[in-house]
């Protein structure tokens, strides 16, 4: 049974359709990335799955339960980090974590979770004295304190410094190692690339592409580019294949990079030429993403 199954999901606000017939599945133990531009409908989908918002149509199951009717039992099995961070600011970190731990049937020890999110030194600090990124980490700790089977993270690393982001990635990986399922939204392609087992890109409330970070949008089979600096005294026309100049370098586009590279290097070796800066480039996840979510002008 998948951890999450969504089929034909629809949701409108007033007259505006925010989600239009979305379908996807998240397997148990998987880290699933939901990507899409601002206003694509990510938070709407996530909050329907969390049980906060009602859907207009479609079928939704979270850990085998309809979240609209989930209640206390489902909430005990799910950890939630909302896009907006809000906590009672008068409490200390320890007080809040222990309060939340009491809400769950089998919580993880507060000290362990604090260690995980790197807030151990702040255990006695009042929440109002924490920095924005530290509050976000505490928010993540609250999502983990109940030892949930499924964790929703809506833009979890927004506002993190680069090293805190790497730390957060480690946390997500460690959750994954425990066999937990994670649904995460993000605007950072490197984050999706390094964390997600599968990615679903939505725009305007519809799925535009789905796949692993490597194959998304035909990335693996898309034209590769071979790039190098043309050795002195040579002309583009001298090359054994069509090429174009780009910013002082030569770019060869090819659907068969192995063959083309072989031809190119054979040609160069035969002439005892070195090709400075030689590299083979695939479209990055970001390139694919931008292409997929480009709004027609």
């Amino acid at each position, binding site marked *: 049974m998948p951890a999450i199954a969504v089929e034909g999901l629809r949701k409108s606000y007033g007259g505006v359709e925010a989600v239009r017939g979305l379908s996807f599945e998240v397997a148990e133990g998987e880290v699933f990335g939901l990507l899409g531009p601002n206003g694509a409908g990510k938070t709407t989908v996530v909050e329907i799955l969390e049980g906060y918002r009602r859907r207009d149509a479609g079928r939704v199951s979270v850990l085998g339960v309809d979240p609209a009717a989930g209640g206390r039992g489902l909430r005990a099995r799910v950890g939630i980090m909302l896009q907006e961070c*809000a906590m009672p600011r008068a409490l200390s970190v320890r007080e809040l974590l222990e309060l939340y731990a009491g809400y769950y049937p089998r919580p993880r020890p507060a000290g362990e979770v604090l260690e995980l999110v790197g807030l151990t030194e702040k255990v006695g600090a009042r929440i109002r004295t924490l920095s924005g990124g530290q509050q976000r980490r505490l928010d993540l700790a609250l999502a983990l304190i109940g030892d949930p089977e499924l964790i929703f993270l809506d833009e979890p690393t927004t506002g993190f410094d680069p090293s805190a982001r790497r730390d957060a990635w480690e946390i997500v990986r460690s959750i994954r190692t425990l066999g937990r399922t994670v649904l995460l939204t993000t605007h950072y392609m490197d984050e999706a690339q390094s964390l997600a087992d599968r990615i679903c890109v939505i725009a305007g409330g519809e799925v535009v592409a789905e796949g692993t970070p490597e194959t998304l949008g035909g990335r693996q089979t898309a034209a590769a580019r071979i790039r190098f600096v043309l050795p002195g005294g040579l002309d583009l026309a001298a090359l054994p294949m069509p090429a174009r100049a780009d910013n002082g370098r030569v770019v060869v586009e090819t659907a068969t990079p192995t063959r083309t590279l072989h031809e190119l290097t054979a040609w160069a070796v035969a002439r005892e030429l070195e090709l400075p800066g030689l590299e083979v480039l695939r479209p990055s996840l970001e390139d694919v993403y931008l292409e997929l979510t480009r709004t027609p002008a």
Partner: protein
Amino acid sequence: MSDAALVLRQVRFEQRTFWRNPASAFFAFAFPVMFLLIFGSLNRGARIESMGNIPYNAYYVPALITFGVIGACMTNISMSVTIRRDSGVLKRLRGTPLPPWVFMAGLIGSSAVVSAILSGLLTAAGMLIYGIAAPRHPAMLLLVLVVGGMSFCALGLALSSLIPNAEAAPAVTNAVVLPLLFISGTFYPLDPSSVLSRIADWFPMRHFALALLAAFDPQGNQPGLPAAHLWVLLVWGLVGVTIAVRRFQWEPWRS
């Protein structure tokens, strides 16, 4: 953890939040005590002719308990719930398995603790400093405090469900509660036959004050339970429960 233990933890959490917030601790707790010290000593020795010539402070102590309990229950709940809802704290809480009734019980329990401390303190101070008589009917006093406290907690929840956002919370709450407290004779005894008292008769504040006075019973002429006042409190409490159940929201208002 059992639900009863969970309620106790919620009460402790609400207590921490209450005492650490200068606004709530000051307005709900220190205000009534300060009023008693200032106006109680200014009117020491005065008597209220329209009420059978009882000492001013024999009237003023139950009146200030009215003020204190309504502040700890209605005002405090209305403001803190609205502010927490608007900041997203309630929404986050709703994502946990904490049952909503336990959350409500925590709020009410915490208000009960503050109300009990205030009532005890004001009564003791009235007796020790101004020499008023001890409440003549303690069991009746407890009953009135419980019925009134619960009703004003329900009204606090109801009022918060009508306030759009955190910025509006103090203004709306005070605009509703303070004038009603004033015309109910909470700050100053009002002639029962005056127009203001007639208006106040429709609202729970005045009935709470009169029921408390009946339990203190300075003249010793209270025939039995102040049933009419208790009924009005109960009806208003039910109005509060009805509105709160229908309208209570966990998420910030969007518009």
